[in-house]
C-alpha cells in the first residue's frame, strides 16, 4: 500500500510539471494583462514600465524558468489584481468553496442513497418512476438557470432567503440546492443501478437463505457493495465541484475559488490564474488518491491485491 501511494505521488508530480507548462503557455496566448491594467490614456512608456515591473519584458523561456522555480518553493507569483501572493489569495477563498461543496455533497448523499435504494427495491413501481423522472430533470437543468430561478422565487418574490454572498447559514441554502440538485440526480441513478446489480447476485440470495431480514440484506450486504462505484463518483464529484463550482459561485456571488477563477480570467490576472489552475490540479490529484485508499477499505479484494 505504501509503495502504491508513493508511486501515485510520483505520477502526480510529473503530471503537475506538464500541467504547469501548459497553463503557462495558455495564459500567454490568450491576451496581455497590460491591456487591462493600463488606463486608456497610458503612454508607451507607461506600458514598458508596467511590463518590466511584471517581468513580462523578458524572453518567454526565462519567464517559464522563473515561474517553475518559484512554483517548487510554493511561490506562484503575486496576483496582479489583489497585489499579494496568488497562493495566499487562493487559500483565503478555498474554505468557502470546500464548505459549500461538502455540504452539497453530504446532503446529496443523504438524499440520493436511500432514494436510489428505494428505487432499486421497488423497481418498476411508481416510486421508481417518479425518482427516475426527478433524476432526469435534475441532470437536465443547467445550474445557472436553476440558481437564477431559485433566487427569483425565494429571494425576490418570497424574500425568505438571501440571494448572494456569504454570512449566515441561510446564505448556504440556495447555492447548496443548486449544486445538490445535479448531484442527487446523478448519484441516485448510480446507486439504483448498482443496488439492482447487487440484488441479483448470488450472495444476496445466500443472505436470504440464511434467514436474514430485508433490512440486513439491503443495508449490509447490498449497500457496501453498491457503494464501491458511488465512492468513485463521490471523489470525482468533489474534485469536480471544488474546481468547477464556477457557475454556481458566480450566480450567487459566492467568494470561493470558482468565482476566483472567473475573476482571474476576466481580469487577465494570470499569475493568479496559473496559481488557481495548478492548485486545483493538486486538489484533484489528492482527492483521487484519498478515494483510491477509501476504495481499498471498502473492497478487500483491492486491499490485498
Amino acid at each position, binding site marked *: 500500500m505504501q509503495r502504491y501511494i508513493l508511486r501515485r505521488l510520483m505520477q502526480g508530480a510529473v503530471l503537475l510539471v506538464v500541467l504547469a507548462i501548459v497553463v503557462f503557455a495558455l495564459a500567454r496566448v490568450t491576451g496581455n494583462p497590460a491591456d487591462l491594467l493600463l488606463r486608456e490614456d497610458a503612454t508607451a512608456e507607461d506600458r514598458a514600465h508596467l511590463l518590466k515591473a511584471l517581468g513580462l519584458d523578458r524572453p518567454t523561456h526565462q519567464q517559464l524558468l522563473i515561474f517553475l522555480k518559484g512554483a517548487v518553493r510554493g511561490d506562484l507569483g503575486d496576483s496582479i489584481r489583489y497585489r499579494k501572493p496568488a497562493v495566499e489569495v487562493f487559500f483565503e477563498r478555498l474554505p468557502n468553496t470546500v464548505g459549500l461543496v461538502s455540504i452539497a455533497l453530504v446532503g446529496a448523499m443523504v438524499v440520493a442513497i436511500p432514494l436510489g435504494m428505494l428505487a432499486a427495491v421497488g423497481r*418498476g413501481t411508481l416510486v421508481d418512476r417518479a425518482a427516475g423522472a426527478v433524476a432526469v430533470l435534475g441532470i437536465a437543468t443547467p445550474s445557472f438557470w436553476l440558481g437564477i430561478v431559485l433566487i427569483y422565487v425565494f429571494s425576490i418574490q418570497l424574500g425568505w432567503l438571501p440571494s448572494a454572498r456569504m454570512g449566515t447559514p441561510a446564505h448556504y441554502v440556495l447555492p447548496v440546492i443548486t449544486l445538490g440538485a445535479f448531484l442527487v440526480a446523478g448519484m441516485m441513478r448510480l446507486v439504483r443501478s448498482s443496488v439492482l446489480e447487487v440484488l441479483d*447476485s*448470488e*450472495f444476496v*440470495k*445466500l*443472505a*436470504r*437463505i*440464511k*434467514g*436474514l*431480514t*430485508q433490512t*440486513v440484506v439491503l443495508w*449490509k*450486504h447490498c449497500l*457496501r*457493495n453498491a457503494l464501491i462505484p458511488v465512492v468513485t463518483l463521490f471523489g470525482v464529484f468533489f474534485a469536480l465541484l471544488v474546481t468547477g463550482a464556477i457557475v454556481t459561485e458566480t450566480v450567487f456571488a459566492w467568494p470561493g475559488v470558482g468565482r476566483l477563477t472567473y475573476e482571474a480570467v476576466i481580469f487577465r490576472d494570470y499569475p493568479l490564474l496559473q496559481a488557481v489552475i495548478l492548485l486545483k490540479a493538486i486538489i484533484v490529484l489528492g482527492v483521487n488518491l484519498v478515494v483510491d485508499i477509501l476504495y481499498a477499505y*471498502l*473492497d*478487500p*479484494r483491492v486491499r*490485498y491485491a
Partner: protein
Amino acid sequence: MSAGPVLLELRDLHAHLSTRWGVVRAVDGVSLTVREGETLGLVGESGCGKTMTALSILRLLPQPAGRIVAGQILLEGEDLVPKSERQMRRIRGRRISMILQDPQTSLNPVFSVGNQLVEALRVHRAGPRRRLRALAQEALRQVRVAAPAQRLRDFPHQMSGGMKQRVVGAIAVSGPPRVLIADEPTTALDVTIQLQYLTLLEEIQERTRLAMLFITHDFGIVARICDRVAVMYAGRIVESGPTRELFAAPRHPYTQALMAAVPRMDESVERLPAIDGQPPALQRLPPGCRFAPRCRHADDRCQREYPAVFAVGREHEAACWRAESSPSR
C-alpha cells in the same frame, strides 16, 4: 441409508414467473417427497424448472416476477405456502437451507468469511460474540476446513473454489436444518474436488439425518449420492423412483433418452445419442405431453392429453401413456 418420516413434501406445486414474453409456468404441478436421512435427486435439462422448484420451497422466487399459484409445500407436515415473510425468515436457514451452485459468487466479497458465518449463526441463536466465533470455528471444522480460526479472518477471494463451497456448506448447515437443498453444488468445482464435496455432504447427512434434495444434471452424481430420483421435464416430474430401479429400467422415453446420452465406460461409441429438438418454451406449452414433440413413440393421444402418472414398480412412477399398458413388475 434407512429413511425415516417424510420431512419435505410438495403437492402439485405450481409457480409462475411473469416475464416480458408472457407467463412462464416454471413449476407446473410438481409433487415429491423427501424423507429424513434420504437424498432425492432432481434431474433434468437446464431451464426445466429445477432451480425454480428449489426457490419456491424457500419462498425466494425472483421478485416481483415469481409467485406460487397453487399447491402445497409441507415441511414436517406444515404448509409453507400461506406463511408470511416474517414466518419464513424463521424457517430459512434453521429448518430448510440451500447450497448454491457457484461458490465464486455466493459469498459476499466485502465481508470476511467469519463475519458471514457468524451472521448465519446469529440469526437463529443468541450468544456472546466469542461463543459464536467458537461455533463458527466448529462449523468450519465440520466441513473439514483446516486451521478454521485463521480461515475465519480470510476474505472469500483469498480462498479456492472448493474451500469457498465448503464455507457455503458450513453456512447452509449451521442451523442446523432438517432439509437441505443442494442446487448443483459441485458443478463449478474441479472433478477431484467434486467427490470430496459429495462425501462431505454424505457425512453431514449421516450425522444430522437431514433430508436432502439434490439438484443436478449429472447422472454419475445421482448414482453416487441419491437414494431416489425424480426426473423433471418442462416444469413437471415425468418419472420418479428408487435410483437403482430407475437406472435399471427407465420407463419414460425422456428418462431413457437421457440415460442413453450418458457415456459408458464399458462401451465405445462413435457418437453419443442426443435428443432431437428443444424443450418447449414454458410460456407456450403444448396441451398434451410436453415431451411428445421430441418423442419417438408419441401418438395422437400424447399430443392431445397430458399423461396420467402410472405406478410402474415399487415407488416407481412414470407420467407416460405407454406406462399404462405395460405390466408393472
